[in-house]
């Protein structure tokens, strides 16, 4: 009779890991989802937003006055960074039509008799219209146009003050007694690429981690290889899981390191804290995301439902992590829910460390939360094991 040789735990772990590496290379889906898709997204988003701050947004002008004063104003507006006066229209209706056709993001209307009224102190009104269905474009133009409005008004007052014999300093003190100086900490260029990509790229990676973790476990149930997998791991779910997930951890951490190096090293995005805290956060983030994946397939051990859960959670992360729409503006119930998304904690760490350069102490809650995720799979591990042994694949 052949006696089965007992293997040590370490040997078992090695065998499962080897098996997993082979599996990862056997299907094109794994390299695609783990390497190609994230790399593509890194490149895509940074290249799409390489301008940093959108510039030269098309704007229309309706100059009903056509005086030298109004033309001067139009030129000033055109010279502004974000505004590109591309079209002139004969009436507001035409400009609105152009807006509805998507040609322009805003328009600027100078009324008839504008110069005449301004010179005779009849306070003419100029109007700015911005299309805020495109929020970023609309807000950027709004800023330019407001500045333009103040400048136009100021120009008239200034020439009046000069005429009365005021010096430039005196004139400015009358025109603008209180000045607001703004220092946007960490991102003085208001660079949207910095603002968005620091969370978008990890978000994509997180989505892929959820998917691959759920898929790689769920597909064992589907293909009826789960028992073989457990056997390799000495029938221990802990060894089997660790052996399966560790090779993936390595790949995902390398992917995370790549975006860190790419963003902070190649593109020179602000990283006040140095790259080490960010790499630490990335490692915890990868582990937390994998743990979430284990919970998803543990709670719903059907491949299709597990993947649906992963997609829902992964895609929702982008909105609920609060980097575009702040979490404190959401419904209180959702604010509590944000705790359950690793991306939220990663985002908070990024703001504290890379963007603002605070010491890691200030973000301890987020680090602890990320570590907390790693403990969660222990809750579902037994359920998962029985699912691996007894569950039958339901299409």
């Amino acid at each position, binding site marked *: 009779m052949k006696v089965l040789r007992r293997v040590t735990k370490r040997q078992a772990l090695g065998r499962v890991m080897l098996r997993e590496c082979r599996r990862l290379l056997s299907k094109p889906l794994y390299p695609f989802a783990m390497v190609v898709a994230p790399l593509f997204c890194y490149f895509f988003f940074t290249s799409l937003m390489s301008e940093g701050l959108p510039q030269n947004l098309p704007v229309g002008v309706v100059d009903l006055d056509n005086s030298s004063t109004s033309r001067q104003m139009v030129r000033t507006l055109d010279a502004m960074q974000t505004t590109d006066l591309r079209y002139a229209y004969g009436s507001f209706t035409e400009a609105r039509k152009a807006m509805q056709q*998507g040609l322009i993001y805003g328009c600027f209307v100078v009324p008839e008799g504008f110069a005449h009224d301004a010179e005779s102190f009849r306070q003419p*009104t100029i109007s700015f219209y911005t299309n805020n269905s495109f*929020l970023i474009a609309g807000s950027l133009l709004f800023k330019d146009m407001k500045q333009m409005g103040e400048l136009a008004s100021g120009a008239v007052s200034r020439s009046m003050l000069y005429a009365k014999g005021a010096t430039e300093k005196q004139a400015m*003190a009358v025109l603008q007694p209180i*000045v607001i100086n703004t220092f946007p900490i960490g991102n003085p260029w208001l660079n949207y690429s910095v603002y968005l990509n620091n969370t978008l790229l990890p978000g994509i990676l997180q989505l892929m981690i959820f998917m691959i973790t759920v898929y790689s476990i769920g597909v064992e149930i589907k293909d009826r290889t789960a028992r073989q997998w457990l056997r390799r791991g000495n029938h221990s779910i802990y060894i089997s899981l660790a052996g399966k997930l560790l090779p993936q951890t390595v790949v995902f951490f390398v992917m995370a390191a790549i975006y860190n190096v790419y963003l902070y090293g190649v593109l020179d995005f602000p990283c006040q804290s140095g790259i080490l805290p960010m790499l630490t956060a990335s490692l915890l983030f990868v582990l937390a995301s994998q743990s979430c994946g284990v919970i998803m397939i543990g709670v719903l051990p059907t491949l299709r439902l597990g*993947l*649906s859960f992963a997609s829902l959670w992964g895609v929702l992360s982008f909105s609920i992590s609060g980097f575009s729409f702040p979490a404190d503006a959401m419904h209180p119930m959702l604010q509590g829910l944000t705790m359950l998304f690793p991306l939220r904690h990663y985002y908070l760490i990024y703001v504290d460390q890379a963007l603002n350069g605070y010491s890691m102490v200030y973000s301890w809650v987020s680090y602890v939360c990320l570590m907390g995720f790693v403990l969660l799979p222990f809750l579902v591990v037994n359920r998962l094991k029985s699912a691996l042994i007894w569950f039958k694949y339901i299409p």
Partner: protein
Amino acid sequence: MPKEQGFKQRVRSGIADLFLIWKDELKLTFSDQGILIFFFVVPLFYPLLYAFIYNNEVAREVPAVVVDESHSALSREFIRKMDATADVHIVSYAADLKEAQLLLKKTKAYGIYVIPADFSKNIHRGEQSFVTLFADMGSLLHYKNLLITATNVSLEMNRAIKISLAQNTTEREDEITSAPIAYEEVTMFNTQNGFASFLLPAVLILIIQQTLLLGIGLSAGTTRERNLYHHLVPASIHYNGALRIVLGKALCYFMIYAVMSVYVTRLVPYFFDLPQLERPGTLLFFMLPYLAACIFFAMTLSAVITNRENVMVAFVFSSVPLLFLSGISWPGSAIAPFWQYVSWLFPSTFGINGYVRIHSMGATLSDVRLEYGALWIQAGVYFIITCLIYRRQVLFCRKRRLDSYRKTKGRMSDDCR
């Protein structure tokens, strides 16, 4: 069976098969939980979830801290006015910048206003005073609130100071002194600058394309898994022709999505009080090519799916890049030409742009003729590609059947010998 069928007969059998395939596909759809999730559960509930997240539209009462070194009536007026706005909430007064920074680090506040010691003195001396704003850039919405509020309050106070300096006699004179040229700013279509009104329409349209992509991909993956030779086409006499298969299946999806689209594009915005300026007829005509383009686009892509669940792993992440490619959040005019060309491959690009303009901006069909035309072209091109793919599959299938028939026949004749 006669080898050569008359044209009339072929059309007749084709139409009969088309409806048979349509019926099969409907049965498959309603018996498959996975497809049901994508075709019904996601379009029904996902928009509600998104709307719930963004429902507050804007951030209000952003916490800020003040370092008031001036301690004057004027500086207090400035602070009071800041706190009175809806957008900013002064949570604390700090003795110095260090203390204020600590509050920022503990995320008790997102901005610091520093009012210098000579703030009031300078103004009364006829010199400029500078208020400094340090803003946390973690969220641009916070920064925007902090900056715009400070600017507005300063403009308001500047006006009052200017008037007091001018020593006018009438109120009208005051008005003219404060602003010789008045200006008004009108934010159109999304008047409150809301986040939901801006992002949700794009998300809604994207959901239609992505759920179709996932559902149809799942269905194709299932067919391949169940099929003996891993083909897209079941071995049945009725599936003998590409056109009838493609049209039969598409009809099934179209019927389901005709209903779902009404819910997604009309009811969801209505539930959440988003601006709705569309004429229903315009929207109806616009959704027609969009659905067709999405369906044939999904059927084309589903050809690469070999297993049921792969479709989710491979396609779900694409939603995020597609949303950005549409030019709603990142302005279309700032997208590099290369990415613009790439974006033309996807129905969502034209669908989102057209829908946002029709729905949020009240555009007519002639205003979105570019998108409308592009969607019809996409529908046509993807339809042809789908037909070619299925034609190849049908031919393959026929050949395989013929081969195996010959093989068995050969074996039988061998046995006989």
